[in-house]
């Protein structure tokens, strides 16, 4: 009786059963992106008060901080998929890692770009080679390297393996980014939000930032799922089940 109720999770490790599941989930994640994004933007730009020191320029954090968080988190998820793929030899893992990389690169770029725009008026410089900024730039290059390496190898399975090793080696950089402001003297300020102390910002500002972070999460999931579906179609194009798909038959 109980046996029947269990969801067979491993079933979804096969591209054939994951493809329709991802298709069903995508609209939900887009809807959540819109809900969190609209409420987050409204809170960020119309409700949150002007900062006492920085004026309205501080509002860059509503994009900058969520993008930075996502750039680090996506890398960890990507490395986890890469590690799973290496250990278990599952086909879907490599595809998931490949699907996440461009979104991660976008987030890292957004983080660096918005940071530079904030840095010029606030610090007085676009860029400075401090530990936080430099390690985030390395993260951006790791994403680009991963994408380039995968694209350079024709055999998909070998490309996955090479990419996985690069992704796993690069994962040491993530704690360096996160703790850089604690370990070294940096121009970049410390964390306003962290697990072991209360946030050092006003409540409405914090809520705006958290809603924007949720919006970025949902966006990343939706885009990664769309991309993984495209990768599945591309890599499994020779299989029978793809030929039987309604959208392929047309």
């Amino acid at each position, binding site marked *: 009786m109980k046996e029947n109720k269990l969801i067979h999770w491993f079933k979804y490790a096969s591209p054939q059963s994951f493809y329709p599941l991802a298709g069903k989930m995508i609209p939900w994640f887009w809807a959540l992106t819109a809900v969190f994004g609209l409420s987050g933007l409204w809170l960020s730009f119309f409700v949150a008060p002007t*900062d*006492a020191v920085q004026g309205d320029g*501080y509002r860059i954090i509503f994009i900058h901080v969520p993008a930075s968080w996502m750039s680090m988190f996506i890398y960890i998820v990507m490395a986890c998929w890469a590690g799973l793929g290496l*250990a278990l030899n599952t086909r879907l893992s490599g595809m998931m890692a490949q699907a996440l990389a461009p979104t991660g690169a976008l987030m890292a770029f957004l983080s660096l770009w918005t940071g530079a725009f904030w840095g010029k008026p606030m*610090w007085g410089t676009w860029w400075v080679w401090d530990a936080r900024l430099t390690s985030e730039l390395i993260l951006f290059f790791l994403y680009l390297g991963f994408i380039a390496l995968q694209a350079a190898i024709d055999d998909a399975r070998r490309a996955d393996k090479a990419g996985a090793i690069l992704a*796993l080696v690069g994962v*040491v950089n993530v704690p360096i980014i996160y703790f850089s402001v604690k370990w070294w003297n940096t121009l970049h*300020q410390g*964390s306003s939000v962290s697990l072991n102390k209360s946030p050092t*910002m006003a409540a409405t500002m914090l809520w705006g930032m958290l809603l924007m972070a949720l919006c970025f999460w949902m966006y990343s999931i939706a885009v990664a799922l769309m991309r993984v579906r495209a990768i599945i179609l591309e890599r499994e194009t020779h299989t029978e089940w793809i030929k039987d798909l309604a959208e392929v038959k047309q």
Partner: protein
Amino acid sequence: MRPWQKRAAIIGGGLAALGVAAALALNALNSNIALYVTPSEVVAGKAPQGQAFRIGGLVKEGSLKRDNLTAHFVVTDTVKEVPVAYTGILPDLFKEGKGAVVQGKLGPDGSFVASEVLAKHDENYTPKEAQQAIDKAQAAAKGKP
């Protein structure tokens, strides 16, 4: 041990070894990664002689004086102090009592001639009204004996 467990163990071991190697390398490079030295380190003679470097600290309250286009102020870490001279435009967030990072060279008399001044912001975000209330309360507390 099954093959996948063996591969997982190799990945785990590899990551652990990589982590240790990265930690050792970063530890060895510690002083090079730091963006700036503190005034205490400068006074103790740990700053590089004859070449440009950065000092980070707080701009001492009441120390900012302007003489034509040159700004004179003192950077402190509340223990030691370094006087700084800078000709140019100071960033908006540059204020007495706030953090700053100055780049330049140390003169023979122990004063620092800066070629670049950056404002260092802290991680606190406060609405204007709340900050005014805090300032008022602090001023009131100071006024009382």
